């Protein structure tokens, strides 16, 4: 493996360039981006590669200022829960057997459906690509048990991806006064002031 190739930089790149490239890639393949997604394992593998490449370059250039990556072997989401009423369902989801998992959960009668039941339903639907349905399940799970970190992080994660637009622009502005409106307003006011003899000092 050529670590420079993995990070997409030339061998003559400066330490800062390498660090930047590493950060960009680490952001791209961060496990948060792939939570509740069938591609989570692949992304984790990619992240590992990037971490290794960065560490390798740092070792080769030792003595210079680059610091080693945190090498945070991020564990997959939902792997470190402490207590569960549905160990089988979780195992099935991990193995990708979503229909079997769904069948077990559907067998649970209406009044004994716990917060975890809704959370696991959310996980299944999210993996299936039924994101809107999954979102309502996660919301219900968090409403029923607002203290559970696992549920909260799943919901937050989903919120982040729903609110962010890949182009980086947040496109639709709420009705009323946006930041842009304020700016234009100020600019207009400034022009008026100049017109009326003020020295543009308003």
């Amino acid at each position, binding site marked *: 493996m050529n670590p420079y190739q993995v990070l997409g930089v030339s061998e003559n790149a400066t330490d800062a360039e390498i660090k930047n490239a590493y950060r960009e890639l680490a952001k*791209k*393949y961060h496990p948060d*981006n*792939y939570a509740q*997604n*069938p*591609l989570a394992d*692949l*992304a984790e593998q*990619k992240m590992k590669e990037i971490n290794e490449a960065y560490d390798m370059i740092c070792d080769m250039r030792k003595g210079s200022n680059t610091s080693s990556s945190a090498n945070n072997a991020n564990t997959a989401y939902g792997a470190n829960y402490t207590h569960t009423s549905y160990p089988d369902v979780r195992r099935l989801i991990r193995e990708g057997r979503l229909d079997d998992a769904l069948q077990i959960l559907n067998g649970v009668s209406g009044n004994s459906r716990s917060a975890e039941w809704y959370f696991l339903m959310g996980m299944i*639907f999210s993996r299936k*690509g*039924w*994101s*809107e*349905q999954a979102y309502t399940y996660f919301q219900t799970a968090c409403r029923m048990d607002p203290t559970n970190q696992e549920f909260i992080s799943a919901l937050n994660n*989903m919120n982040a*991806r*729903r*609110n*962010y*637009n*890949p*182009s980086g*622009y947040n*496109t*639709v502005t*709420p009705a009323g006064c946006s930041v842009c409106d304020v700016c234009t307003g100020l600019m207009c006011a400034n022009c008026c002031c100049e017109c009326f003899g003020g020295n543009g000092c308003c």
Partner: protein
Amino acid sequence: MFGYITVDKSEMLGKDFEAYKAIYCSLCKQLGKDYGVLSRFILSYDCTFFAVLSLALKDDCAGFCQGRCKFNPLKKCNYLKNDTESLSLAAALSVITAYYKLRDNIADGVFFEKLLCYMLLPLFSSWHKKAAKKYEKIEKAVFEMSKSQFDFEADENCSIDKASEPTAKMLSDIMSMLVPYDDASQRLVFSTFGYYLGKWIYLCDAANDYDDDLKHNGFNPYVILYKDEKSQHIFDIEKSLNYCLNEAVNSYNLMEIKRFDRIIDNILIHGLSKKQTEILRNKE
């Protein structure tokens, strides 16, 4: 499909745009070659994107050469040097999707639209027959989409996820065709990518048709869910679209692309977002 998968020219390098245009022109030429000159009119940006993605995975690229456009002989165009199978595949996708769209219009349209579609049907059928024979998998994927779409539209309480499933599934199947069968992990990447891209396309179209469907009582999963004016729910609609776009981009990041990455970046990151904004803003 609907022509939503376009580039954002303002965010693009000149050379990338040239290459994109050359692929667009090559696909047009390929359509003419495979299905006759009239089929060139169904050329779409969606299928061009499919051609770009397919070409991006090939080991070799023969480069471009100059030629003349058949419709405007004064214009010089660039074309791909070799007629690759990627273009044939994209051309087949074009005619097969166009055929099912026509059938769909015949089922839903008003009188004059129906009449026009009926007149075109023999022509489209002949192209479709030829393409379906050569590319059975595409035919199967599109046929299944059209069938389950029809079934789902009978459901008065159809959810957003359910309504978008047929289109998502179709694109998922078609995208995974681009990867060799034995490469399981890349197949998963491509099918996930196709799923969310298909879902995004379907939901964008639903958002686009919202007001019409509300007025004329057409099938639309957003109308089923929100029931009243679109402007009240623009943020919720945007969030559901953002999610699909993010998932598609995340999947794309795991693809092993050999070239044209800047073009695909542009389409996925800028082109689609721009289209999404246009759709949401127009109706505000």
